[in-house]
């Protein structure tokens, strides 16, 4: 469809910060020399006096954010997912997580859809890292509408929030009537045979997978799971009970991400087959983003195939 609106979630992030800044005069945005790429540059242009470039020093940026927030400022700190969650993991754990400080991390360029920069910059481990920090909230929006609402929700939330945004322009999934709530998964489709639980840019691909399955006579439910932590246990249990098997889909290592979070809930509460579509514990590589998504099986066809495999595993 040529008329589908495509926007990168990082663009929605930058614009949402400008909106936030209009009502919150305590808002300060930090970046680590990537403002043009993370899109905090949009905020910088509108509010140069409330933007602080910390330079290529992510560890220090997280500490500076902690200090500012402890004095009452609303702080958003941005870098690429690799250098926020990865490089500054221990700073996030000890300077934000342990004291439960009110800093919001805007991590862009997550996943392999970074594209040509390749494996060194394609962070597929960030959700896993952030998920192990007690009290951390993790948001992974699917499109620009959801990204904007996630930023507003993060600003209102107490404690640290990790927001995961992409570089690639992705098709809009939601419309202006969409309501976002931290900790709540949302059914985008009801079905009987299998539930697909997707997050981030895989949501749009999961919608296509539902259509592929429908054409083959398979009724697939679809849940958008924008909050990875705290994970919506109720909706996962509902999915397990109503369809008896689950497929997860994410642009992240299958270890530690959404698939793990869902499997942890089902294993404890309602054991059913859970198959995981994601990066199969390998590093990424260079290439155009859309080609890489195909190469790594992050597409509708693979989700549909895994759905059928999950159904076959049902007792």
């Amino acid at each position, binding site marked *: 469809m040529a008329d589908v609106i495509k926007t990168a979630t990082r663009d929605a992030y930058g614009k949402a910060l400008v909106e936030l800044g209009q009502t919150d005069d305590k808002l300060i945005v930090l970046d680590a020399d990537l403002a043009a790429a993370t899109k905090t540059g949009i905020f910088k242009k509108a509010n140069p006096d409330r933007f602080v470039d910390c330079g290529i020093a992510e*560890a220090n940026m997280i500490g500076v954010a902690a*200090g*500012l*927030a*402890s*004095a009452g400022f609303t702080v958003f700190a941005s870098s690429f997912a690799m250098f926020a969650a990865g490089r500054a993991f221990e*700073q996030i754990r000890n300077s934000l997580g342990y*004291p*439960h400080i009110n800093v919001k991390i805007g991590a862009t360029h997550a996943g392999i859809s970074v594209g040509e920069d390749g494996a060194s910059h394609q962070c597929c481990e960030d959700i896993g890292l952030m998920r192990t920090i007690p009290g951390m909230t993790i948001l992974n929006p699917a499109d620009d509408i959801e990204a904007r609402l996630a930023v507003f929700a993060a600003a209102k939330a107490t404690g640290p929030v990790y927001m995961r945004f992409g570089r690639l322009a992705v098709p809009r999934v939601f419309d202006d009537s969409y309501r976002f709530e931290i900790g709540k998964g949302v059914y985008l489709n009801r079905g009987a045979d299998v539930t697909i639980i997707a997050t981030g840019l895989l949501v749009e691909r999961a919608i296509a997978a539902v259509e592929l399955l429908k054409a083959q006579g398979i009724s697939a439910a679809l849940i958008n799971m924008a909050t990875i932590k705290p994970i919506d246990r109720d909706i996962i249990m509902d999915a397990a009970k109503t369809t008896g098997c689950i497929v997860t889909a994410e642009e992240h290592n299958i270890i530690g991400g959404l698939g793990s979070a869902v499997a942890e809930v089902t294993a404890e509460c309602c054991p059913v087959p859970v198959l995981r579509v994601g990066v199969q514990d390998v590093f990424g590589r260079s290439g155009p983003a859309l080609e890489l998504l195909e190469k790594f099986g992050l597409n509708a066809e693979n989700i549909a195939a895994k759905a059928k495999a999950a159904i076959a595993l049902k007792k």
Partner: protein
Amino acid sequence: MEPTKKQQLSVAACQIRQGIIEGVFNAKSGHPGGSLSIADLLAYLYFAEMNVDPADPKKADRDRLVLSKGHAAPALYAALAYRGFFPVEDLKTLRKTDSYLQGHPNMNSVPGVDMSTGSLGQGVSAAAGLALASKRLNDAFRVYAILGDGELEEGQVWEAAMFSGSKKLDMLTVFVDYNNLQIDGSLADVNSPEPIDEKFAAFGFHVITIDGHDFDAIEAAVGEAKSVKGQPTAVIMKTVKGKGVSFMENQVGWHGSAPNADQYNEAMRELDARLAGLKG
């Protein structure tokens, strides 16, 4: 400095040292050496300098102290307790399972602690953030960070130093507890961060080197730091690890071990005698 003020600060420092020994002895673990070496600085800051109120420990315009060398928590807790933030008696609960006095400072559980620290190198960045906040609030408060000399081996310290110099954070004063000993030995034997003064100067700091056990020198350095505009200040304090407890002085082994009962009694006797002398 007025003789009476100096005498009061000497008493406070001696009490802080007793609090350190009390805490570490009862915990049967902890870091006495690097706690004792900053007792005089903490006495000066909390009893003569900082705008803090034990009745309102979170008041917005309070001066902040970030103990970047968080393992010196016994010293910070003792200073806060004797300053009235919580009962001195509680120092005996240091590191106990249900105590609020965690092994390293926790800003959410201990009244008067301004930042959770313990992982070396991180506190100084938070202090820089606080100093930036102060700037934005029209210089509402001063920020003091205390770093270990071994801590200077952490790269993040220099990220923070670069930031603080670059952003002209003149509300920030960084103290380096230059006792020349770290866990594995002397600074030179491990991985020397020297020349410390020249490094801070290169990052844009106003640098002052003093005897960290001389109240007159500490007072003069803090006053000088407050007069400097457009630059953060680094005060390199030459100190003695274990200062005030003779058998612990300059002994690297007392970095992270607790005294036994005999050693506890010996340390307390020495500090009691000094206290008696001070009170005349």
